[in-house]
């Protein structure tokens, strides 16, 4: 069964596709321990759109992000970033692609403790050997409100500030797409709201494209569109979400969001070990 959803009416004016998954399948292990994490998933992420990927834990939402972002290999099907197919790329080319076209925000381990805030922000450009665009950099720093803290080390910043540095780092290189993996998972609700606000603003004001994985309906409500995953398949989609509407959809998901469930080759069967999403 193939499920295909297209965000036809995004908030973004553009209709160009920043990233795409087509019949994307990811299988872990073999034989008895074989686990299908993604089952022929097709999805498109448009430029200038803020998409949230939601689903219960183990639904394959992180796996989908990792595969589309070139961090994990694909078993079958295809994934592409801005028209570049990831499948045939070698590690070196994938690394370069991530460096030049993708921004990342993780739940933790986002910053290098030896570098100050500014150095962390420009790190991807330093790796690429590119000079940062000063005007843009200033704009980004201002957007995330880090003006006075650029020379601080991560250890001198709060959790929220650290995550804002991570957001700035992702934005600074003007990547084609930013992937955020539970970016507010380690933050208190106020700092989390701040970071999500910045992400939304960067889409609205700077025209960024963001794909965010989350299990928090409140976080998902910041997005333009929410894609729901369950058991390795896309099962639903919501435009212009609110926290309530997201929560409602989750409750109505086939496997239920209330009881996080393990993935398996046969939907509904339980007890097969799988990597957590």
């Amino acid at each position: 069964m193939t499920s295909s959803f297209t965000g036809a009416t995004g908030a973004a004016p553009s209709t160009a596709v920043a990233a795409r998954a087509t019949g994307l399948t990811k299988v872990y292990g073999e034989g008895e321990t074989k686990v299908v994490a993604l089952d022929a998933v097709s999805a498109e992420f448009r430029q200038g759109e803020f998409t949230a990927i939601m689903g219960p834990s183990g639904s394959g939402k992180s796996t989908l992000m990792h595969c589309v972002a070139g961090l994990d290999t694909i078993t079958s099907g295809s994934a592409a970033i801005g028209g570049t197919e990831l499948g045939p790329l070698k590690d070196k080319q994938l690394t370069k692609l991530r460096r030049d076209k993708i921004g990342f925000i993780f739940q933790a381990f986002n910053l290098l403790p030896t570098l100050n805030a500014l150095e962390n922000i420009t790190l991807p450009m330093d790796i690429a050997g590119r000079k940062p665009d000063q005007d843009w950099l200033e704009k980004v720093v201002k957007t995330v409100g880090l003006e006075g803290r650029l020379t601080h080390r991560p250890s001198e910043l709060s959790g929220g500030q650290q995550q804002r540095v991570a957001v700035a780092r992702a934005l600074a290189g003007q990547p084609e797409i930013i992937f955020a993996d539970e970016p507010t998972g380690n933050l208190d609700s106020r700092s989390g709201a701040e970071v999500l606000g910045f992400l939304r603003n960067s889409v609205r004001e700077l025209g960024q494209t963001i794909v965010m994985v989350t299990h928090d309906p409140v976080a998902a409500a910041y997005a333009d569109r929410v894609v729901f995953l369950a058991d390795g398949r896309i099962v639903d989609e919501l435009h212009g979400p609110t926290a309530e509407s997201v929560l409602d959809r989750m409750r109505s998901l086939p496997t239920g969001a209330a009881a996080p469930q393990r993935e398996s080759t046969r939907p509904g069967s339980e007890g097969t070990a799988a990597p957590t999403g």
Partner: protein
Amino acid sequence: MFRTALRNVLAHKARLLMTVLAVLLGVAFVSGTLTFTDTLGEAFKKSSAQSFDHVSVAVRPHSAREEDRPKLDDALLEKFGKLPGAESVTGTLSGFTALAGKDGRPVGDGWSAQGTNHFPGPDGEDPRHRFTDGRAPQGPDEVAIDSRTAERTGYRTGDTLRLSADGSVRTPKITGVFDTDDGNVAAGGTLTVFDNATARKLFDGDEYEEITLQAAAGTSERELRQQVAQVLPEGLKADTGRQLADEQAEMITEQTSAISNTLLYFAAIALFVGVFIIANTFTMLVAQRTKELALLRAVGASRRQVTRSVLLEAFLIGLIASVLGFAAGIGIAVGMRAAIGATGAELPDGPLVISPTTPLVALAIGVLVTMAAAWLPGRKAAKVPPVAAMNSVHAAPTARGLVVRNSLGGVITAIGAAMLFLGVSGGTTALLAAGAAAVLIGVIVLTPLLSRPVVAASAVVVDRFGVAGRLARLNAVRNPRRTASTASALMIGLTLVTGLTVVAVSVQTAVDKMAVGLMRADYVVTSVIGPGLHPEVREKLDALPEVAATSPMRQGNADLDGSYQKVTGVDPAAVGKVLDLDFAGGSLAGLAGGGALVDQETADAAGLATGDTLTLKFYDDDKTEKLEVTGVYNGNQMIDGIFVDTAVIDRHQDKPRDYQLMVAMRDGPSPAAEKSLIAASDHNPAVRVQDKAAISEEISSVVSLLLNMLYGLLAMAVLIAVLGVVNTLAMSVFERKHEIGMLRAIGMDRARVKRMIRLESVVISLFGAVLGIGLGIFLGWAAGTSVRDTLEAYTMTVPWDRIALFLALAGLVGVVAALWPARRAARLNALEAIKAE
């Protein structure tokens, strides 16, 4: 607790690998040394005991002065022979005997080329020489050689041999080949046997060196000794063969234990270096297990129990490593014997001797060193509060505590430096040594402080490698304590290597300067055996057309103001052409007319100046001679004492000999000139012809040999330090896997991750190397001041080429040490790494 400790050891196998290796190598060095020296000592004892088999009683001079005792002559020999308990009596005699091989070159070096007399007993045999071929020599034109020499040179019975025992060349026939227990032969020397009359003539013997008696059947050694004692004149002593063998065994034990002690010093250095690695590993293990330890505390373990569990872990690791190290040590002992055998030195055969104390010592040392190194981390573990089990963040090691450490290090370094400077100006070696040790320890304590500026300075080079270089540099000082102990381990080895190199190279330069500095001659001709060159050698050389001038260096021994004075006879007409004497007063001019040249130091001591009269009493004939001081020159250790005309010496000696001939050539040194000099000296195997370059080379080869041995001994310490670098980097990669994963995710490729780890390794290694080299030069300078007391020409020479090589090698060590950790880092799965714990 035991189970917890065991589980922990097993769980961290890979991370403990380097620690185990470090202890293993140290313990292997110790047990290898003990086993090797025990084996060697036993083999030597056995072989020397054999050489006393045919000696029941030996009679030797009791006092050194010949006047105080009767001579060991034939009359005495006969007297002993008449004793009822004596089966046979032998008089032995020996001296240097240089042999030429079939290629005309001397066999072996001068000192181990020996000759002796053949003294057949009533049965016609001399038990010292067991003939395997031919017969004993008879008359002046016959000799026999030992079987090892025969094998080495290819000479056989019936061949003619070229040799020199008294300075002149002889070409006797070889009548036989024999086996012997002679210790000199066992050590790789040669032994030539002459018949008794010839030996006495050659070795200038109006007496024997020793008379040995063999007891008749039914007479014990002690009974025979009592019989000998009754007829023994005053001034001589008699010992039984047993006593002699015991005496020798004691001497061998003393010598092997001296070797053993020297090796153990280096083993101790290696173990000391290992301490840093063990401490690093345990500090990391404790830091990683903070939560676990806190949990133990939370469920009721006392601080003591926590410390004990860490120490128990250390005990287990120490035990495992020591057992393996002991086994490796036995291997080293076997290998060392084979290696020495391969260099050509002959060691007596014998079984491998493992004394029962060796495994005990090995285990005790390995376990104690490991536990001592783990003690501080163990105490730190106990300080983890139970509440840490609940906290999600574990506290990172902070700069707290470095203040105390830095002050302590500063004080120790300052005290050490003060002692050094006092030692340098006051000159006691003990103070110098204590100061050097204190400075070394002080700098080790200060290393974390020093790491920041030194590593920051590396930015100039490292940052050229881009972001990988900058991150490497920053990572290198992230955990200053760990970086410091890693670098310290390397620093210790390099301090010693550099210090020893500076002193050795300076000594070499000084000796070289003395040996050839005052020489104008192109060649020095010397006798490698005792008595020196016959004056006729000079006449032959003078007859060569290519020789411009020669002067003998004829030795005279005289007394000046009640003490021994070296007097050298030279040719006044030629000495100016072969020696470059630096006159403080007077000149060469008056030497021919019975004048004397005195070196400045001797002149000062005796209160002599140019124009004064010098009174020398010659030992050779007890006659006194008055000479006018016609010149005072600045001498050195090689060219010193009083120079006179050879005619002065000849007046007091029956058989004048030249210990050296200085030869100046018309066209300087050349292979052809050297060849004709050798030919003119009759291809005498006892004569050595060397030009200045050969002399310098000989000096430098002695120094190189010594240095290479020291480098070899220090190699183990350096190797362990390299393991430390590997260990530290592996730990860092393990601890920073999330970070590295993040870097990979945001676009750092594998090559650059590798480069980052490699550069961190190089930075740490070079940091240790720079400290070690700096400290080594400083300590080398300090040690040099005490050398200057005995070697005036000593000036510190820093061999920059070698030091550059050390630095390059340290950089290479960094690259090699990073191979495995860098590969692990590059292979890290970015996905696994960035996932939240």
